[in-house]
C-alpha cells in the first residue's frame, strides 16, 4: 500500500497538474491549438517565482509574476501563429526551445534551491495541520478558485467567443469575433495557468530546475485524457472537473506503480510510462475522445 506521505505527495502534485490540465484544456480542447509551450512555461513560472523569492518578494506577488511570465510566453506562441502564420505546433516548439535559454538566464544557473525562503506555503504550516497535508489544503483552494473563475469565464461573452473560435472559426468571424485575438488571449491564459503551476511546484518542492518542464505536456495530456474517460466532458464544468480528477488519478496511479516493488519501476521511468499510457489512451478504441481523435485523424 501507499504510505501516507506518498499519498499526500501524489495529491499535491496531482492538484498542481490539475492546473496544467486546465491550461491544456484551454489550448487543446477549447481552441483546438496543440500547444507545447507548456514544457517551457512550467519551468518559467518556477524560475520567475524562485528568483523573486530569493530577492525577498512577497510569495503571492512572486507567484503572480510567474503567472504573467507564463501568459507572456503563451502570447508569444500565439502571435507567432496568428500574426506570422507559423503552424501552431511549430510555433509552440520554437517558444519552448527559446524558453530553455530564457529560463537559464532568469535563474542564472541550472537550479535554485528554496530552503529558507518564505513561500506561499509558509504561513499555512502554523495552522497545526500535519506537515504533508498543508500543501494539499492550499492547492485544493487554489485549484478550486481557478476552476470557478475559469468556469465563469468560459460562460461569459468573451469565453463563449473563445469557445466558438476553437469550434468553428469561420462562424466566429462571421459573428464579429476577432478570432486571432481570441487565440492569443486563450493561449496566454493557458500558459498563465501553467506558469502558476510551475511557481507552486517550485515552492512546494523547494527548488526550481531548468529541466523540470520536460514532459509536462504529456503528463498534462495524460491527465486530461484520463479525466475525460472518467467524466464525459459534455459541459464546461464537467470538462474542468475532469482535468483535476484526471490529474489526481494519474498521480495516484504513478505513485502506486512506483510503490509496487514487483514492477521494479523507478522515478526516472515516469516519462516512459506516461508516454506509453498516453499512446494507449489515444489508440485504444473506447477511450477515444475528441482530443484523442485530434492526434490520429488528419484534419480536413
Amino acid at each position, binding site marked *: 500500500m501507499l504510505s501516507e506521505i506518498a499519498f499526500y505527495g501524489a495529491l499535491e502534485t496531482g492538484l498542481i497538474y490539475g492546473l496544467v490540465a486546465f491550461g491544456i484544456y484551454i489550448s487543446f480542447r477549447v481552441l483546438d491549438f496543440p500547444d507545447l509551450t507548456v514544457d517551457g512555461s512550467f519551468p518559467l513560472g518556477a524560475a520567475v517565482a524562485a528568483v523573486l523569492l530569493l530577492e525577498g518578494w512577497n510569495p503571492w506577488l512572486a507567484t503572480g509574476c510567474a503567472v504573467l511570465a507564463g501568459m507572456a510566453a503563451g502570447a508569444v506562441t500565439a502571435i507567432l501563429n496568428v500574426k506570422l502564420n507559423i503552424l501552431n505546433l511549430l510555433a509552440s516548439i520554437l517558444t519552448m526551445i527559446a524558453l530553455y535559454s530564457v529560463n537559464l538566464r532568469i535563474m542564472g544557473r541550472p537550479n535554485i534551491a528554496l530552503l529558507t525562503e518564505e513561500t506561499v506555503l509558509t504561513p499555512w504550516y502554523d495552522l497545526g495541520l500535519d506537515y504533508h497535508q498543508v500543501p494539499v489544503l492550499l492547492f485544493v483552494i487554489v485549484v478550486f478558485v481557478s476552476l470557478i473563475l475559469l468556469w465563469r*469565464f468560459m*460562460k*461569459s*461573452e*468573451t*469565453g*463563449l*467567443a473563445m*469557445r*466558438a473560435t476553437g*469550434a*468553428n472559426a*469561420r*462562424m*466566429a*468571424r*462571421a*459573428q*464579429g*469575433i*476577432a*478570432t486571432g485575438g481570441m487565440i492569443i488571449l486563450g493561449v496566454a491564459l493557458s500558459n498563465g495557468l501553467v506558469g502558476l503551476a510551475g511557481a507552486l511546484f517550485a515552492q512546494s518542492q523547494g527548488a526550481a530546475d531548468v529541466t523540470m518542464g520536460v514532459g509536462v505536456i504529456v503528463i498534462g495530456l495524460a491527465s486530461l485524457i484520463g479525466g475525460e474517460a472518467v467524466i464525459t466532458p459534455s459541459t464546461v464544468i464537467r470538462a474542468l472537473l475532469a482535468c483535476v480528477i484526471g490529474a489526481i488519478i494519474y498521480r495516484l496511479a504513478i505513485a502506486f506503480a512506483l510503490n509496487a516493488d514487483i514492477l521494479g519501476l523507478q522515478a526516472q521511468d515516469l516519462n516512459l510510462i506516461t508516454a506509453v499510457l498516453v499512446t494507449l489512451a489515444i489508440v485504444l478504441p473506447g477511450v477515444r475522445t475528441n482530443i484523442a481523435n485530434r492526434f490520429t485523424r488528419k484534419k480536413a
Partner: protein
Amino acid sequence: MISATDLRLTFGKGTPLENPALRGMSLTVNQGEFVTVIGSNGAGKSTFLNALAGEVMVDSGQIIVDNQDVTRLPTYKRAARVARVFQDPLAGTCENLSIEENLALAIKRGQRRGLSAAVKRQYLGQFRESLSSLKLGLESRLGDKMGLLSGGQRQAVSLLMASLTPSSILLLDEHTAALDPKTAAFVLDLTEQIIEEQKLTALMVTHSMKQALEVGSRTVMLHQGQVVFDIAGKDREGLEVKDLLGLFEKQRGLQVDDDSLLLG
C-alpha cells in the same frame, strides 16, 4: 445600401493555377431589396459573397456598406453590418455549443463582448419566442447541443441567428442546397418570411433559376466574375426560365461580339 464597384480578384496569382474569379464585378443593392443571384459553377458567386463579407480580400475595387468603405476591413469588423447563412448547415453554428449559446453568440454579432454571462436571463424570452416562430419545437430545447439538430433545423436556426440583430445586408449562399426538397422549401419560405417581416436587404445565391425568379425583387446573373444581366421590376415580372436562358445567350453573344470588335 451596399455597393461593390469594379471588384477584381485572382486566385493563385503568378502560379500555373492562376484563376481570375472576379473580373470587374459591380453591383449596388439598395435598402430593402431582395436580390437573387444565379450563375454557372465557378461563375464567382461565392467569391463575390465572400468578398462582401470580408472572408477574401479583393485585389482592387471598392466595397461600400452604408457609406463606409469596408474594402480592407476583415470579416469580424464588418460583422455588425453583414449577416450570413452558409451553404453547409454545419458551418453557420457551433455543434458542441447549446442552442441558447449559439443564439447568445449571434445576439452580440459585431458588438463588444465582455465578461458578463453570455446567456442572460433577459435573452431567454426572446430566444424562445423566435424559436417558436419556426414551429420546430426548438423553444423547449434551448439547452440541447446544436449538433443534435437535423440539417434543416440547423439551417433554420442559422437564419434566426442572422436576423437576431439588425444588418445592412444578409448574405445567403445556396443555403438550402444541402437540404432535402421538402426541408429546402421550408427554409426558403422561412427566409422570405423573415426578410419580409424585418424588411431586410438580402443577396441570395441559388442554383435554381425558377427559384431565382419566384423569390425576391431582383435577379442578377454572374458569368466569369461579372454581372451579365440584372433585371428587376416590370422586366422581371412574368419572366420564365427559358427567357432567362435566352437573355444569357444574348448577353454572351454580345460579349463575344465586343471582343471581336476589340480584336478587329
